[in-house]
Every structure is written in C-alpha cells, then in structure tokens.
C-alpha cells in the first residue's frame, strides 16, 4: 500500500498549517477549532497545541459528529446505521472564526454536512476548512483553505489518514478499494 505521508510528513504539514492560520488570522483571539469525528478531532487538538506554542494562546477546540447530517442515511443506506458519537463544542461559536478540521477532503459531502451542523450551533463570523489530504473528485463546490498535501487519486482508490491517537501510527496511505479489508468508510469519508 503506497505510503503518501509518514509521521514526519504529517507533523511538518500540520506545523506549516498552524503557521498559515496565525498568518491569516492576525488576531488568534477569536478563532476556534472544530474537528470532524473521528480523525479530525485529534488533528484539531494537535493544531491547538501548535497554535499555543506559536501564539501563546489557548484556542478552544471542539468535536463535531456529522452523522445526523449525512445525506445518505434513509435513502441510500446499504449497511447498518453509522454509530452516533457525541458532539462536544463547549463554547459559543457565535461571532468566532471557526476552523473546521478533517482528515481527507474528497467529494465534499462531509464538509457540507459539517457546515449545516455548525450553522445549527450558532452564527460564526466565518468558517475555514483545514484538511490533511485533498484527494480531489469534488461533487460539491467546496474548497479547503489549508491543505497538508494534495494527492491525485482515482475513484477506485481509497485514502486513509491514520493518527496515532486512534490507529497507533501516523501515516497517510493509498489503497485500492477492497484491498485492505475491514476498513469501512469512516464518517468523514463519503462512500464512492
């Protein structure tokens, strides 16, 4: 399975993104990170630690489960209902600049669901999108503001971002669909 990014690659990419965030959001004071469950959450937490080191400010960090906003539940369900996980946004998002964090940007449907969910929580000043990998094949007009790496893929491939907090290892790999058995599409990965 071809390795796209190793542990060091991911670390450098996230550090670069943290610097870009500070650059683009001069006053870090009103930003907050919201990770999309599941792998967006540990990535958001890592970014928060980097932002603290760079700017000296604690950036509020939350977790968003977008399952209830998916557009493929009632009508295209092929398997069991996705397991619901809790959403934890322990701060008001009103008038904040929200950095939405996900591992892979693919069709854009997950991001669409996350935007809908976020807007139900309040009225942020802006929402910016952070992804570790952009693999293309967008089905909706959505674009990331910060990208760790652009990885051109075919639709028959799958991209997995693994994080040590959940997977025991930091790496990004590409596989053919069905090749690495057992990997059900995570909530953030719209099924092709």
């Amino acid at each position, binding site marked *: 399975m071809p390795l796209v990014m190793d542990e060091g690659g991911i670390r450098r990419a996230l550090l670069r993104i943290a610097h870009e965030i500070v650059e683009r959001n001069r006053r870090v004071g009103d930003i907050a990170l919201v990770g999309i469950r599941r792998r967006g959450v540990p990535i958001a937490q890592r970014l928060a630690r980097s932002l603290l080191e760079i700017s000296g400010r604690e950036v509020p960090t939350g977790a968003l*489960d977008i*399952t*209830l*906003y*998916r557009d493929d*539940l*009632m*009508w295209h*369900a092929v*398997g*069991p*209902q996705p*397991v*619901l*996980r*809790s*959403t*934890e*946004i*322990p*701060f*008001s998002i009103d008038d904040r600049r929200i950095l939405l964090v996900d591992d892979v940007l693919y069709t854009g449907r997950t991001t669409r669901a996350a935007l*809908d*969910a976020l807007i*139900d*929580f*309040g009225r942020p000043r802006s929402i910016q999108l952070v992804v570790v990998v952009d693999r293309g094949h967008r089905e909706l007009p959505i674009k990331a503001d910060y990208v760790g790496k652009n990885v051109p893929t075919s639709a028959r491939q799958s991209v997995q971002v693994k994080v040590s907090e959940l997977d025991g290892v930091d790496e990004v790999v590409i596989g053919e669909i069905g090749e690495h058995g057992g990997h059900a599409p995570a909530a953030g990965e719209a099924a092709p």
Partner: protein
Amino acid sequence: MNVARDARQPAAGGQVQPAARLRSKHLLSAGDLSREEILLILDSAEAMKEVGARRIKKVPTLRGATVVNLFLEPSTRTRTSFEIAEKRLSADTLNIAGGTSSLLKGETLVDTARTLEAMAPDMVVLRHAASGACHLLAGACDARVINAGDGMHEHPTQALLDAFTIREHKTRFEGLKVAIVGDLLHSRVLRSNMLLLSALGADVWICGPRTLMLPGVERFGVRATTSLDRALEDADVVMLLRVQAERMQGHFFPSRREYFATFGLTAERLRRARPDVIVMHPGPMNRGVEIASDVADGPVSVILEQVANGVAVRMAVLYLLAGFDANEGAE
C-alpha cells in the same frame, strides 16, 4: 454551552460492546433485544440527548421520512414524546388517534394497516389496548413498527429510557438492585423492564400485593416479594408502577388508603434503600396511592429526567430503525 458527556466509558459496559446494528426492522418487544443491541440504543441516545441541549434542537436526519403515530389508546405523554423525537429528526409526522378518526371506524387493525400502507409511511408507532397488536400490525404492513405500548404486554421504549436514566446515575447495571413496586399484573412497563434490566445484569425485585403478582413469575429471573420493606432494603433504584383506581373493581385491593399504607412509597420507608437511591415512575403518577408527594418531588426523584430522556431514547430508536431498507425482512 453544548457539553455532551461521553458516557461510553468502559465502566458502563465493561467487556460487552454495543452491537453494530439492530437485527430487526421492528421494535416490538424488549425481549427481542440482545444486551449489545440495548447498549447500541443507549449509546445512540447519548448523542441524541446532546441534540436536545442545542439551541436549534433539530437535525435533518429523517428528512423526507413519514412517521405515523397511530395511538388507538389514549396517551398524551408517550405520543408527545415520540412526536418531539420525530420532529427533532425532521421526519414528517402524522398523528392518528383512536376515537377521533373516521379512518378507523369499525375497521379492523389489519384494514387500518392496509389503509396506512397506501400512504407509504416509513414507520408506524403504535399504541394499542390489546397485547400483541404490534405483532399483528408488523405482519400486515411493510413499515417499520415501533411498539409504544400494547395492552398488558410491553412498552419497550419506556424500559429503554428507564435504563438510560439509570445508567446516567449509576453508570452500570451489574449487581444493581432495582425494586419495581406497584400493579405488577397489568403493567406493560414492568414486563419490558424485567426483560431489559435482567438482560443488562441488574438484580430486579418486584413487589406488590399478592393479588397483582405475576403468574409464573419464577421464570422471569427476578425476585418477587409482597414485602415492600424487603424490596426496598439496599435498593439502588426504586421504580413505581401506576396503580389504577379501577383495579379495585377486580377485588385486587380494598381501597386506596389500604394500598398506600401497605405499598405506598414514603420518605420513611425509603430510608431502607441505599443513600444514593433514585426513585422513578413512568407516569402518570397517583400521588397518595403509590407514591407520597414529598418523595415524588424530592431530591431522589428522577421522574422528570425520565421524561426528558424519553425523547432522546426515542430519537435513537427512530434513527437506528431508519437504517433498514423498508423491504428488508424482520430478524
């Protein structure tokens, strides 16, 4: 503002993991649910409870789905709870109540099912005075059927919300002494709770007058007593069942006064329970019959939490059953 406790700590389930899905497209009986399926519903309800704490308490999950609340026996509490749950999930809801509906005049349940079928609902939530009515409906239509109380048989979502409430307070079920007191014989809430709480590992005691004891109780794996004091001794949870005045006609007990004196829960009697005991009631309560007001309104009462949790649990059930293809077979 939006803090959802992640209650899925290992302590809550130990080694037992929640199931990945429900096996049946219907929810007819608590007895049909495995322990893993129960945990899946309770875990999903945690996430649903967080939705209920938001400013906008609505998610688009069941947008475009039609849910019929077919309440052929009067019920405000359960119907309202289901209706809120459906609305929070953005389903289109349709309420049909017995007595008021010309649709149902002189019509059999099977005919009603066929009539509904023509409107292609995705789910039917049925409350009915006859035991087994939900089984009959499930056999007669394609929609997923949720039992919202059938006769003296079962009321599975009530038992699920009771279990959810108990878990919030006690974080576990194994070894928990749950005393269920009241009109045992006629209670569908009791039957569902016995099945559900026993499956989760709780030590269930049931208590009531001998005249209202369950025939064949020994086979339910619960302990039965007519002594309220024994039932309350070191109880972690006390659950009261409604005692209806009309039961006096069947020679079940002589008067409300005598019932209250023998089985009514008072603060005094509750001292036998554990200090951190919680008191539950599925409602509606008969104050001064099965429960004294100071207990019902006191600090150990979680009765209103039960009502709030009912919405979350019903959202979870609706969500999980929605995952079935409508044409998929049960089981």
